[in-house]
């Protein structure tokens, strides 16, 4: 075989021989870009009380991942996303150690005990938040008013009290990323435009919460569209619906599955809010739906081309 020398020159690999320029890292960078408006609004309202926790969470998450797998400090970018998302679920002025514990738990318990990105069942940022909620519930609900940075209650403690327009712009007490609906919507619009999320999960989530909030309250059934809107805009629902529930790894891949997942998140959130012990239900609603995602994917497998009903 005299042409063996030539053969070495040419790569033999499986088709297809062209690939999309999209990479996991580029998707993660896009998610970070989409979070910029929310981060900016948090920084404007809460100043160093927002900036310091965000930076600490970001650095702690990236450092933890780096120590675990040593693949470059940014790696695929998912640790940075987890860090920022976690920070946005924390109250303003959270202590540095709270941020660090949250971020380390998010990366280790949320991701690496399952085998790393792609294999995790639960949204890592929410795992971090759940650990903090379970251990330091008081600190996790110590809210500040964005007006004077004094202690205040979350609007969720008194359903219907805060003005809808304040909820919309972010002029209310709450977690760093929960306050401004506009900032979250701008970010989500970018992700939609880039094709990283679609309408099904946020639509199912927000739609079902809106309907339930409109017709239900702890006192019984009724009809109050402002309450529905209030439930959608207050607390972490938008942050959850737009950025947490849409996490690709932990949500279904089938179109119908995504819709069911979104509706499930909305229904659970509202049940917890209206009947549960916690004023907020987003974290546990999404974590519960994360757990049933494999089942949903299985049950909503599309009919394959040419499938004949038996």
């Amino acid at each position: 075989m005299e042409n063996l020398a030539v053969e070495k020159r040419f790569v033999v690999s499986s088709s297809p021989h062209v690939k999309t320029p999209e990479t996991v890292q580029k998707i993660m960078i896009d998610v970070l870009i989409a979070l910029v408006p929310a981060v900016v609004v948090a920084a404007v309202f809460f100043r160093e009380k927002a900036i310091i926790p965000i930076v600490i969470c970001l650095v702690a998450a990236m450092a933890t991942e780096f120590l675990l797998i040593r693949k470059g400090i940014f790696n695929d970018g998912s640790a940075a996303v987890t860090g920022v998302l976690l920070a946005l679920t924390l109250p303003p002025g959270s202590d540095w150690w709270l941020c660090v514990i949250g971020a380390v738990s998010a990366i280790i318990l949320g991701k690496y005990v399952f085998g790393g990105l792609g294999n995790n069942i639960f949204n890592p940022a929410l795992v971090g938040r759940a650990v903090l909620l379970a251990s330091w519930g008081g600190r996790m609900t110590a809210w500040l008013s964005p007006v004077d940075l004094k202690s205040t209650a979350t609007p969720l403690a008194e359903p219907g009290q805060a003005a809808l327009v304040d909820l919309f712009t972010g002029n209310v007490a709450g977690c760093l990323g929960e306050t401004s609906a506009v900032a979250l919507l701008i970010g989500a619009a970018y992700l939609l435009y880039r094709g990283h999320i679609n309408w099904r999960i946020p639509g199912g989530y927000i739609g079902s919460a809106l309907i339930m909030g409109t017709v239900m309250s702890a006192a019984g059934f009724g009809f109050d569209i402002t309450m529905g809107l209030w439930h959608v805009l207050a607390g972490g629902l938008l942050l959850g619906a737009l950025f947490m529930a849409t996490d690709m790894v932990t949500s279904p891949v089938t179109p119908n599955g995504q819709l069911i997942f979104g509706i499930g998140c909305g229904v659970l959130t509202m049940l917890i809010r209206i009947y549960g012990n916690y004023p907020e239900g987003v974290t546990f609603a999404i974590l519960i739906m994360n757990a049933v995602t494999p089942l949903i994917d299985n049950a909503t497998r599309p009919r394959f081309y040419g499938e004949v009903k038996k």
Partner: protein
Amino acid sequence: MTIKTFKGGTHPPHDKPAANKPIVTAKVPSRVVIPLSQHSGAPCEPLVEVGDEVKMGQKIGDVKAFISAPVHSSVSGKVVEIAPHFNPGGSSPMCVVIESDGKDTWADDVKPKKPLEELTGEEIINITKEAGIVGLGGAAFPTHVKLIPPEGGLEALILNGAECEPYLTCDHRLMVERAEDMIYGAKAMMKALQARKCYIGIEVNKPDAIAATRDAIGGDSTIEVVELEVKYPQGSGKQLVTAVMNGLEVPSGKRSTDVGVQVSNTGTAIVIADAIKTGRPLIDTVMTVAGSGVNESANILVRVGTIFTEIVEQCGGIKENAAKIIMGGPMMGGAVPTLDFPICKATSGVLIFTKDEVVMHEILPCIKCGRCVDVCPAFIMPNFISNAGEQNNHVEAKKLHVEECIECGSCAFVCPAKRPIVQWIRLCKSAIWAMSSK
């Protein structure tokens, strides 16, 4: 006119550098290496011996089996060797090596047949078989087998002019330059198949081919151009049927004829026209030479048995930094280690990529982004199948209907984690096949 398509699919970068280049004719090779098996089905037995003088178009290989196609000499000259020759398709088939005398003297039996109006369907099938015609769309299935009419005739014949693979432009050029013959061939195929209609599916990015085809059809109301959306894999058989027949699906495990449709390639219709009009067997084919690694892209008419190296040299040769050779299109074609093997009847093109296009990506775990599920035209779940394949879990892959995969490559194309999904699918399929044939 509505533009039709199928569900799923994707948009690979649409590079067609040779789309506007008229077909040129390659130099007559001084030596051809003609494989005796260039089709699916039984390989041929040689009909000639070393030392024999052969004429152009003379039958040099044939076999009794029904699913097979005879092989003809593509030059006139002398048989110098009959031996296996390297072929990257796997086995090294027996080849007849002929040294050309440069005269291109046609064999005596290459004569025009009766006009189409006087031919019976059976005669058309016979002419197709004798001319060694195989499907030029890829699988090289003997065409005469596909022309047998089903009981009660056929709803429609669909000619595939989608040519959805990037780079490939040979079908496009043939439609533009030889539309009349294509329609002639279509009519012959319709007659053989007793087909009531013929649809010619062409993607809308080839307006010149659509116009030329419409011109050639003229007032014939039984033949119609169907404009197709530019989307990959529009030219895949089943997807084409679904698009053209308004959502009709070919049931799993069945053939398109079971739902009254037969699919063939536009180029195949042209060679059938040649076989009837001039008696010429299938001894040459139009292929595309393209890619960043070649100096001059081209659509080129080449004799079967020409060594690829010679053709690429006629296109200015390959560049220093060429790093990959692909037989066919970039989505479904196979990469080969060398150009030192012969062109076959069904060769559609050769692509050469340079180093910067041959990036070896790190394979990451699936992030369940769902892109592959969205694009899969078979509506299966490539993400879960790829996980099963990665873990060698063939039973799971089978449960996920891996066998329905048409290997179009759309999933692996869109995957941001750069997972070699198609490769794993092929491994699963052959493992399942091996299990079931035990």
